[in-house]
Structures are given as structure tokens and as C-alpha cells.
């Protein structure tokens, strides 16, 4: 059955829409799970009650986000069958087992220990509880490992042969550890940490702006800024290395990201801004910096970068999209760097908790991690087009024999359901964050001691009490 261009386009929109909505939640979960493990570890080690308060507080936000991630993720794996059965038929032999490994080694680990982590305070001892929290955090990272391996294989496929037009795996080590995998894995894991750090920081800033300056608020604000100060520079370096790797394996993607049409001799300039035009094969209004392209992408003064014109038109990704999505990601990264550095400067002058302009800045940066993350994924995914498996299977050959009606209807349903359900979910997460951790004098027992470890302390502290409603 012939699949119309419209059905293909709608199927692509459906995937882009659902995966973009989905990734928001796992990114928050990955970051928060590790943060929670650190908080609980610190609490067990120091016995300071502030860590426990923060743990309880963020675990509530985590629980909502995690549930959103689970239910929106189920949709993803089924789409490979419903809309992209060509992809399943050709490349399922590689991506299927990787997905199965993710489910077996990560999803069950998370789901199995999540119950104990969220509801098990009174059922198990503190050490066992800490173990459960660790398992949930490790589970999220294992999950990242497999899904990034699968995605990276689609970007830089190897370790297989084609038999009757279908992928037959020959070397699983080569498949799992394909050339772009290490870079993409580290880049994504750090991105998730940054997503959580800017959100935790912004939540702290919001409460500081509202006049709450107790220990829990200060601590979370300070921890988030330390985290950013360490991780953002590393992320910049990893991103740079990832770029070199992409130039080696997917030169057309790099050319599209840079809006570079000609292969320039004796050093490539960099288009800072501009408007790449796919029809006219030119980048309008380009502001160029000589040699900077070579310096960034080859680490040499006059390294050569292939222009888009050296690829046949049917093999070119859409430069207009990836040129800008890439710049949005980098721009967000630079703003985060600025935030972290300002934070350090204020800290040295002892004004971290007083400078209101800085707190507003931190609050404003709340979504920056997610924006950068989404922009980065748009860059790498749209930059892989017109291929779904780079050089092996074109996107247009991967779509199921579906009708416009089917895919159009389901897209419409998904858009409505997602905005309704996940919109509400996000609203509740924001409400929870706006409520903030319990004030230290909220309950008598919290003041009683700063060293009260042991399970008996939990017996009177349920995760959230019936009075904890958040929509009144």
C-alpha cells in the first residue's frame, strides 16, 4: 500500500510530539533520582534533619514526574509498531534487543524499588531504604545507557550486515558501543543532571524571593549552584568532543548545523547567526567570523569542513531547523555558565542569599535545562534526516502502511490527551514546588533534635499527609 506524504509527515509529527513531551519527565527523573540518593546519603551520614526534609520534599515532585515518564514512555515503544513498522521490520533486530535490555535491566529495577522508596519508610530500615533509593537512581542511569545506545546506533550504525534488505546483527559489542555512543551518553546524562539542578535552583530562588530563608531553602539553592558550577563546564567540553565525533561520522549534519554550503579552502568561517535557505542553497544575513568554524570543529586554524553542496540534495538535513535548534542549545548553555559563575562570585562576597536580581535570574532559568535538552535532541534527530538509520534506512521507507485518517486521528487524540494530562501533571509539580519543604517549626518533632536517625523517626512522618492537598 502506498503511504502518502501527508501520512508520513503526520507520523513524523506524532513521533516528534510524543517523544518531546516524554523526554521532559525522564530527564527530570534521572536528575532528581541522583539528587535524592545524595540527599538521603548525606542525611544518613550527617544526621542533619535538613537533608531529610529536602529528601521528602523532592521525592514528592519526583513521584509525579516519574509516573508521567512511565505512562508517556509506554506510548513510545508501541509507536515503533503502529506507525513505524518498516523501521521495526528492517532495524528491529538491533533496536528491539536494546529496548528489551532497557526494560529488563532498568525499568523493573526502578519500578521494583520505587514502591519501597516512596512508601516503605515504615516498612524497612534506613539502610534498606537508602539501598532502594540507590537502586532507583542506578535504574534511571541504566535506562539512559540502553536507550542512548539504541539511538546512537541509529546515528552511527555498525556491527551488522544487510540480508534481503534487513539488518542482521553480527557483533553486539560493536553495536552497543558504536562510535557516537560514549559522547551522546555522557552528554545526555549530564544534561539530565543540569535539568534537575536548574529546577532545584529555581525552586530555591522562588522561596528566597518570597522571604523564606531557612536552612532547607538555602541548602538546596546552594547545592544546585555548586552542581551547575561543576557540571556545566564539563558539559561544554563533552559537547565539543561530541561535535568532533559528529563531523567524522555525520558530516552533512555538521554542515547543516553551521549553515555551511561551500567547502571553504584555507580555513572555514563560522556563521554566528543567519537564515539557511534550503531552496536557494545559501545562508541569508550571515554574520561570519573567519577561521572560527575550523577552530571549533577541527581544533585547527585552517581545518576543512565539508559544505552541504557536496551532498546530493536528497541526502541533506534541513539546515534551517538544526542551525537554530543548535544555537538555542548553546545559548542556554552559556546562560547557565553565567548563572553558575555569578553564583560563585556572590558566594565569595557572602551575598548569595541576598542578591534579588540573582534570584530572579535563577528563577528565570528554571526551564533552561529542558529547553537546551529539547533543542539538542531536535538538532541530532533532525540532523540525521533524511535517514532514520543513518545511511541504511530512509525515514520515508520506515513508515507503516497507515492512512492519513488513522495517523491524523491518533495525533489529534495524543495532542489533546497530552496537553490535558501532562499539562495537569506539570501544574501539580509546580504547585508542589511552590509549597516548598516543611518549615523547620512546622512540627514539634522536627525541632526536637538535629541528629535523630533511625526508623522510629519516620513512624510519625508519612510522605505526605491527607492535609497535604495542593489544589486549594
Amino acid at each position, binding site marked *: 500500500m502506498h503511504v502518502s506524504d501527508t501520512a508520513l509527515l503526520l507520523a513524523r509529527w506524532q513521533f516528534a510530539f510524543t517523544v518531546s513531551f516524554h523526554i521532559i519527565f525522564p530527564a527530570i527523573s534521572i536528575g532528581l533520582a541522583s539528587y535524592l540518593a545524595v540527599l538521603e546519603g548525606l542525611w544518613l551520614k550527617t544526621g542533619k534533619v535538613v537533608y531529610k526534609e529536602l529528601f521528602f520534599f523532592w521525592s514528592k515532585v519526583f513521584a509525579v514526574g516519574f*509516573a508521567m515518564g512511565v505512562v508517556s514512555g509506554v506510548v513510545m515503544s508501541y509507536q515503533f509498531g503502529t506507525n513505524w513498522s518498516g523501521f521495526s521490520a528492517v532495524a528491529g533486530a538491533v533496536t528491539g534487543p536494546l529496548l528489551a535490555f532497557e526494560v529488563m535491566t532498568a525499568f523493573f529495577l526502578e519500578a521494583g524499588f520505587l514502591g519501597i522508596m516512596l512508601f516503605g519508610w515504615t516498612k524497612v530500615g534506613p539502610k534498606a531504604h537508602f539501598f532502594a533509593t540507590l537502586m532507583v537512581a542506578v535504574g534511571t542511569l541504566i535506562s539512559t545507557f540502553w536507550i542512548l545506545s539504541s539511538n546512537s546506533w541509529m546515528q552511527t550504525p555498525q556491527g551488522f550486515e544487510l540480508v534481503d534488505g534487513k539488518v542482521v546483527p553480527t557483533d553486539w559489542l560493536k553495536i552497543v558501543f558504536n562510535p557516537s555512543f560514549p559522547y551522546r551518553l555522557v552528554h545526555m546524562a549530564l544534561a539530565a543532571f543540569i535539568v534537575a539542578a536548574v529546577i532545584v535552583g529555581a525552586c530555591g530562588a522562588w522561596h528566597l524571593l518570597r522571604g523564606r530563608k531557612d536552612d532547607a531553602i538555602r541548602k538546596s539553592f546552594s547545592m544546585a549552584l555548586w552542581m551547575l558550577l561543576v557540571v556545566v563546564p564539563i558539559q561544554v567540553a563533552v559537547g565539543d568532543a561530541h561535535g568532533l565525533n559528529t563531523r567524522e561520522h555525520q558530516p552533512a549534519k555538521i554542515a547543516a548545523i553551521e549553515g555551511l554550503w561551500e567547502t571553504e579552502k584555507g580555513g572555514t568561517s563560522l556563521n554566528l547567526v543567519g537564515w539557511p535557505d534550503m531552496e536557494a542553497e545559501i545562508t541569508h544575513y550571515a554574520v561570519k567570523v573567519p577561521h572560527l568554524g575550523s577552530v571549533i570543529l577541527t581544533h585547527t586554524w585552517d581545518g576543512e569542513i565539508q559544505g552541504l553542496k557536496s551532498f546530493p540534495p536528497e541526502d541533506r538535513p534541513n539546515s534551517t531547523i538544526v542551525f537554530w535548534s543548535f544555537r538555542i542549545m548553546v545559548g542556554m548553555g552559556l546562560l547557565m555558565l553565567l548563572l553558575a559563575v555569578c553564583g560563585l562570585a556572590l558566594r565569595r562576597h557572602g551575598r548569595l542569599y541576598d542578591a534579588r536580581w540573582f534570584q530572579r535570574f535563577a528563577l528565570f532559568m528554571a526551564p533552561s535545562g529542558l529547553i537546551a535538552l529539547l533543542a539538542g535532541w531536535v538538532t541530532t534527530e533532525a540532523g540525521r534526516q533524511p535517514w532514520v538509520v543513518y545511511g541504511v534506512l530512509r525515514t520515508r521507507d520506515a513508515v507503516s502502511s497507515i492512512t492519513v485518517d488513522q495517523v491524523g486521528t491518533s495525533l489529534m487524540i495524543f495532542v489533546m490527551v497530552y496537553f490535558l494530562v501532562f499539562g495537569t501533571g506539570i501544574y501539580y509539580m509546580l504547585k508542589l514546588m511552590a509549597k516548598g519543604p516543611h518549615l523547620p517549626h512546622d512540627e514539634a518533632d522536627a525541632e526536637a533534635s538535629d541528629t535523630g536517625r533511625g526508623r522510629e523517626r519516620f513512624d510519625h512522618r508519612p510522605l505526605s499527609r491527607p492535609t497535604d492537598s495542593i489544589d486549594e
Partner: protein
Amino acid sequence: MPIDLPVIWAAIIAFGVFMYVMLDGFDLGIGLIFPFFDREGERQVMLNTVAPVWDGNETWMVLGGACLYAVFPLAYSILLPATYLPIIAMLCGLIFRGVAFEIRAKARRTQHLWDLAFIVGSGVATFAQGVILGTLLQGVEVRDGKFAGGPFDWFSPFNLFSGIGLLVTYATLGCGWLLMKTEGELQRRMAVLMRPLTLALGATVGIVSIWTIAGQDSVAKRWFALPDLFFFLPVPILVIACLIGILVCVRRGADRAPFLLTMAILFLGYTGLIISIFPNIIPPSVDIWTASAPRSSQVFTLVGAAIVIPIILAYTTLAYWVFRGKVRADDEGYH
């Protein structure tokens, strides 16, 4: 003789799907009988019985889907387009239900809306699963390794009845689970509800069985060929014994037996289903060998499954053990 990987994999996936139907069956069932219970605090207790484990239960479905995709990609790429709209409906149902779990306890003003989302989500997801099951039983039109039917092929009386059948099955499971996990007045009302559910379950199992055999010669031949009939005969006999067992145990006020017996019925029905279609994976024309992924994919995934699935079973058991016993309205540590 080389190991017949597709058979091993068919067994693993059959196991995974059974785990899903059994485990998510009872927590979807809680949503289905939600409308009958609306006294103060009752619904929250019902939810609390599964709050720590529902997520793990649903993961078995993801496992079934992912393994099917990994080792029988052809079956995956036929079944999903063939049941496109029921799949979408099921996913949307699961979305509403999953989110309601998390948010219901935290909401006040909008709590009744989340209750509705939980009920309708559970109902739609269950019904859609039943329709998908019916479609599979009835057979899917395949040409050149692709789904060759229309977008509404799944819309048939038999498939819709399968949907109703699964609603009854899950509701009975859910009721049995709550009979085991609650006490006092709530438990007593569960016992009252369990009896009509059990009778309805017996009726639907009977109707689906007869309808399948009457409607499909291949299934009838499989069941009634001698001497196989004598091996298969215990299945329906045991189902009837279990149904009677549930009614007797409920009357005697047993805690656990009704739930265990309902699971036994589910297991027997599932066995019957497998007897009816094996070795096909998409009846009537695609068998497990045709649908198989390359050997290297099946081996690679099998190595992982052999190591990891026992570990999963161990800590899943642990999670159920930690949260064993009755759930009370004043329990702490829940939402």
C-alpha cells in the same frame, strides 16, 4: 539437535504477558469496581493496596512489547497496525489511570474528576486489551509479511465481546485482591460483590470458549482431535472447579483463596488460548519461526533474559513481601 530458540522465546513472552495480565489485571480491576465504593476513605484504601506495586505490574506489559519487538519483529509489525486504534485507546486509558494514581490523593477540589479518570482509564484500557486479544484469536489478514486488512477489522462482535469478557475478568481479580488486602466493612462488601462477579466470569469464559470453537475450524480441530482431547479436557473441568471453589470460599469468609482461585482461572484460560493458537503467533498464517528475528538477536536477548528475569522475579517478590498484610485507612507512609 540445536536449541529451538523461537520456542523458548515464545515461552518467555507467554510468561511475561501472563504476569502482566495477572498483575496489572488486579490493579486495573480496582479501577473497574471503583464505582461501587464511595464511602469516606474507601477509595483511598483501595488505591493504597496497589500504590507501591502498580508501576512494576505495568512494566510487564512493556517487557512483553519490547521482547516481542526484539525477537518476533514481524509479529510486532503486523499486530500493532492491525489493532491501531485499540492500541491508542489502551495507551490513553493507561495514561489517565497512571496519572490519577499519583494525583488523586493530592487533589481536593478536583478529586472526583481524578476518580473518574481512574475509572474510565481502567475501563478503556481493559476493554481495548480484550479487543486486541479477540483480534489475535480471530486471526489477522496478512499478505507479504504485512498487515493487509482495514483500519476497522478489529471491530467485530466477537472482539467486542472479548473486551467485555476481560472487563469481567479483571474486575473479579481486583475484587479478589481487595478481599485479601482489606478488612472489616470494606472487606465484607467485597465479598458481596465477589459472588455476582464470579458468576459473570463463568458465563463469559463459557461464551468466549464456545464462540471460538464454533467460529474457527482450526481451533475446534485442535481441541477435539483424539487423543489430544484427553490432555486438554482438564482445562475446562478445572475452570469449573475453581469457579465453584471461589463461591464456596467466599461464603466461608476466606481471605486469600478467592484471589488465588481467580488467578488459577486466569491461568487456565490463558493456557486454553495458547493451546488454541500455538505455534502461530499471528493466526492464521504467521508462526513463531516465520516471525523470528535473526538468531543473533534472539541469542543476545536470551542471555540477558536468562540472567535478569530471575533477579526481577526476586525483587518483585521482595516488594510484595515488604508491603504484605492488610491495608488500613489510618496507615501511614502512603499518600
